[in-house]
C-alpha cells in the first residue's frame, strides 16, 4: 500500500461548472421527454379534450361576464384556456415527481444525488428542467388552440412566458416535495386523488370565482386559498399583458416554500435518512 497526499483539487465549483450541470440535467430531461412520445401526446390530448369537447358543450350553459383581464365578452373556450395551460403544468409537475419516485426506486436518482455539487442546486436544476419541458407542452397546446380560434394578443405569447415559468416552478416544486414523502410508486395513485383533482377543480380554471361564490361561499374561500387558482390567474393576466400582483405574490411565495420544503426533504440529514434502504439492499 502506498502512502499519498490528498489529491490536488480546486475547492468549490466555478460558474461554468454550475452551468454545465444545469445544461446536462435539462438535456437529459429533454431527451427522456422526446423518447417518451406517448407522454407528449397525452400531455396535449388531455387539455385538448377539455377544450374541444368540454368547453364546446358548456359554452351555452356557462356564460362569462366581463371580468379582468378581459375587456369584452369572451367565449368559454377562451376563458378556460389559461386554466388548461396551468393544468398541463400541474400534470407535468406531478409527472416529474412520479419520475423522481421511479428513479429513486430504480436507483437512477442516486446518480444525481451523489454529484458533488450542492444538493439544493441539483434539485433546482431538476425543477428547472421539468419546467422547461412543461413550457414546450404549453406552447404546443397554444399553437393547436390558435387553430381553434383561441387567439390571445400576439404579445401575450411572450408576456405569458415568465408567468408560465414561475407557475411551472411552483407546481414542479410541489411535485418534488410530494415525491420526497412517497415511499413506493404504488402510492402515487393517491396523489391523483388527493392533489391533482382537488387542486384543479377547486380553482378558477374552469369557472370564474364569482360564479363559485354564488354557488358555494365556502368553496369560494377554498378556491382563494388554492395556489393553483393563483397560478391560473397569473397566467390569465399575463396572457393579456397584465400582472395580477396578488397571484404573483402567492405563486412566488408558494414556489419558495415548496422548494425549501423539497430541499429539506431531500437533505440526507433530514429526509432520506428516515427511509430504509431500497428493496433487496441492506
Amino acid at each position, binding site marked *: 500500500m502506498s502512502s499519498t497526499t490528498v489529491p490536488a483539487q480546486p*475547492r468549490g465549483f466555478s460558474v461554468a461548472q454550475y452551468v454545465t450541470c444545469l445544461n446536462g440535467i435539462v438535456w*437529459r430531461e429533454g431527451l427522456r421527454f422526446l423518447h417518451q412520445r406517448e407522454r407528449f401526446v397525452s400531455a396535449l390530448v388531455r387539455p385538448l379534450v377539455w377544450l374541444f369537447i368540454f368547453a364546446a358543450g358548456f359554452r351555452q350553459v356557462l356564460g362569462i361576464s366581463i371580468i379582468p383581464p378581459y375587456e369584452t365578452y369572451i367565449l368559454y373556450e377562451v376563458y378556460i384556456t389559461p386554466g388548461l395551460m396551468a393544468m398541463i403544468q400541474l400534470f407535468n409537475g406531478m409527472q416529474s415527481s412520479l419520475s423522481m419516485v421511479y428513479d429513486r426506486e430504480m436507483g437512477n436518482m442516486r*446518480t444525481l444525488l451523489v454529484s458533488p455539487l450542492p444538493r439544493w442546486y441539483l434539485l433546482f436544476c431538476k425543477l428547472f428542467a421539468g419546467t422547461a419541458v412543461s413550457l414546450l407542452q404549453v406552447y404546443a397546446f397554444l399553437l393547436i388552440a390558435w387553430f381553434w380560434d383561441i387567439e390571445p394578443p400576439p404579445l401575450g405569447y411572450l408576456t405569458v412566458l415568465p408567468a408560465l415559468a414561475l407557475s411551472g416552478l411552483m407546481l414542479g416544486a410541489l411535485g418534488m416535495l410530494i415525491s420526497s414523502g412517497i415511499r413506493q410508486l404504488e402510492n402515487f395513485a393517491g396523489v391523483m386523488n388527493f392533489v391533482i383533482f382537488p387542486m384543479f377543480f377547486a380553482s378558477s380554471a374552469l369557472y370564474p370565482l364569482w360564479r363559485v361564490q354564488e354557488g358555494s361561499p365556502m368553496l369560494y374561500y377554498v378556491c382563494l386559498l388554492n395556489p393553483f387558482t393563483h397560478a391560473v390567474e397569473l397566467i390569465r393576466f399575463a396572457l393579456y399583458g397584465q400582472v395580477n400582483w396578488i397571484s404573483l405574490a402567492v405563486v412566488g411565495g408558494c414556489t419558495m416554500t415548496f422548494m425549501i420544503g423539497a430541499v429539506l426533504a431531500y437533505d440526507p440529514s433530514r429526509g432520506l435518512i428516515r427511509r430504509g434502504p431500497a428493496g433487496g439492499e441492506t
Partner: protein
Amino acid sequence: MTATDALSKGQDTQDIPARSETGGISALSIDGVSHAYGPRKALIDVGFTVAPASFTALLGLNGAGKSTLFSLITRLFGIQQGHIGIFGHDIAQAPGEALRLLGVVFQPRTLDLDLSVTQNLLYHAALHGIGRRDARERSSEVLTRIGLADRASSKVRDLSGGQMRRLEIARALLHRPRLLLLDEATVGLDVKARADILMHVRRLVSEQGIGVLWATHLFDEITASDALVVLHQGRILARGQVARVVAEAGAPDLNAAFMRLTAGAADLGSAA
C-alpha cells in the same frame, strides 16, 4: 487468537485515524459509525480505513449492513453517529470535496436504460461540472478501456448485464476519482463477466493507484493479499489482511474463518 478474540478485537472501539498504516492520508476513513432505521440498528460502531491504491474487500452476508454503509459514505443518508472522511474531507462537513474524489457503483443498476451508452456518460460528466468537449474525450477514453467503444451509440437497454456493469464502472471513473466503491458489483453476472470485472477493478488499483472498497458476499472474489473487513449484523468482526484474519481465526481458509467469526458473533449475541 481464537475466533472470539478476533471478534472482540474487531469490536474494539479504536481511534480510526484519517491516515493509513503507512502514514499517508487514507482514501477512506470510517470512524465509530452507527446507524439505525427506527429501532433496528443497521450499523454499530463501525470503523476502518482504506488506503490509497489498495483493494479492500468488505465481506458480509445479505443484511450485514454493507449497502447502508455505502449510502452513508455517498451521503445518500445522513450520518447519525461517527465520522466518514474521503482523503481527509469529512463527508458531512465538506461533501463537495469528498464526493469529487469518489466513484460509486451501486448494487442496483443506476443507468438510464432509454439513453445511449455515451449519453449516460455525458450526463454523469455534466453532474460533475465537466464540459461537453472534455466529457466526450473522457467518454471515448473510458469506453475504449472497458471494451465498449463499439457500443457507444447503443441504447443501454440493449447491453448485456456484464456490459452494463462495465459501463457503470466506466461512468464511476469518468470524473477521475481516487476512491472507488463497488457494492455487490458482480451480482447476477455469469462467471466470465464476474472475472472480467474483478480483473478490471484490480488493474485500476495497480495501474492507476485508485483505492477500492469492494463489497461482496462471495469468498472467491477475495485473494490472500487483499485487505479485508468482515461485517456481520452491522458490526465489524475482523479487519486486516486476509491471510492475517484467517490465521487469527485459526481457520484453514477464508470461508472457514468467516464461519467461525460469525458463529462467534452468534454466540455473543445469544449470551447477551
